[in-house]
């Protein structure tokens, strides 16, 4: 395809793109779509039926108010496929109102929100094998990562929303409070809300006796 054709295609795509940017919607959330139905002269059309369609499935239906406005809503099922989705706002033909059929499309993106909760020991020591356990909401399988100062120090797998990740405390960690971040790499159309586990690195000092002298 020539460059000019590509440009033309780009402009065409822009021209038919909906005015509103795609709205990000998490599974389980309720999308609300508000709008106004007007006639050719811009006057509001009152009392008209407006439907929200997913293909041919009616998700919601309402009637316009005296100023032509309407609000439709739809709760995204928790198992709905992720990714972009086009819904149709449809005004069916209504002979009693002399209203012909009309439609417009609304683009949304269905995202998953993964919320990690985790807990670990309150006190750790160099060389300890530390186990962080927790659960992941919104994700049945996948991986979790334990990070410290941006470095991944351990990964583990999620099974049945539960996980358990172990690592050995490196010897170069300094004593004092330590914040571990537990998160998941997520994926396409997945937002991850990680969690932080606070712990403290304590020192078990070794006492070296250098000299024992008599009196």
């Amino acid at each position, binding site marked *: 395809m020539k460059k000019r054709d590509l440009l033309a295609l780009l402009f065409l795509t822009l021209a038919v793109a909906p005015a509103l940017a795609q709205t*990000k919607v998490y599974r*389980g*959330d309720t999308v609300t779509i508000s*709008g106004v139905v*007007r006639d050719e002269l811009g006057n509001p*059309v009152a009392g008209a039926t407006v439907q929200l369609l997913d293909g041919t499935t009616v998700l919601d239906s309402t009637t316009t108010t005296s100023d032509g406005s309407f609000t439709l809503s739809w709760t995204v099922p928790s198992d709905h496929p992720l990714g972009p989705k086009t819904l149709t706002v449809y*005004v069916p033909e209504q002979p009693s*109102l*002399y209203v*012909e059929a009309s439609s417009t499309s609304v683009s949304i993106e269905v995202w998953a929100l993964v919320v990690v909760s985790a807990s670990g020991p309150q006190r750790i020591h160099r060389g300890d094998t530390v186990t962080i356990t927790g659960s992941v909401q919104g994700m049945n399988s996948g991986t979790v990562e334990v990070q410290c100062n941006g470095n991944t120090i351990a990964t583990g797998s999620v099974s049945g929303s539960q996980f358990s990740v172990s690592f050995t405390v490196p010897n170069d960690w300094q004593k004092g409070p330590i914040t571990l971040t537990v998160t998941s790499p997520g994926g396409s159309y997945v937002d991850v809300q990680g969690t932080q586990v606070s712990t403290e690195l304590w020192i078990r000092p070794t006492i070296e006796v250098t000299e024992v002298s008599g009196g």
Partner: protein
Amino acid sequence: MSDPEGGGGGGGGGEDPPPSKKPTKLTIAANPSTVEPGQTFSVGGGLFDASQSDWWNYPIAGATITVTFNGQTKTATTASNGGWSVVFTAPSQEGTYTVRASFAGNSQYEGTSASTTVRVQRPSKRNCIIELIYPEKVHVGDIVNITVILRDAETHQEIKGKMVTLYIEADSHQIESGASFTIQARYPGTIDVGARFEGDEQYNGAYDPGGLIEVWTRPSIEITHVGCGEG
């Protein structure tokens, strides 16, 4: 048959009784018998010897027939078949007029007269029909043309230049037949149209109840907000 003039004088005059005259029969007819003002029509008939047998009219030729109609007098001379004819022009005043023809009589024949009537009336008004031309379905914002055509009910010829009342909903507009009236469809619903012609000297009035123009909308759907919250 007795002689009414000669037979009765029985008195003792020494004069000879006048020679008996033969009775006559005068026929008359107007053609046409119903005319429009200003139209010419003929009145004619025949003069016959009534002493002859009833089943054969013996014509009297060369007799003078005086015909009067609406104050006018015309004369005609009977032809060899006894026929005579004159032509009149109908007056402007409508009505039924009597046309009287008379034969004064002569030495041979008795005088006689006959009459008929002529009806003078204006031509009856013609009927016309209104043809309303309008779209059955338009859309909001459309410019709608409504045309009123007046036609002769018989010939279906278009009659131009008559003022016709066009009814659009509660409004009425005077427009010339054959012309169009333009409105803009503003709201979804219907527009009731009809037309009336009041009639004039030539044509009777006419009315067309018309009908409804359906005004539809292809609505635009403006999305003002797409939002989400927890379900």
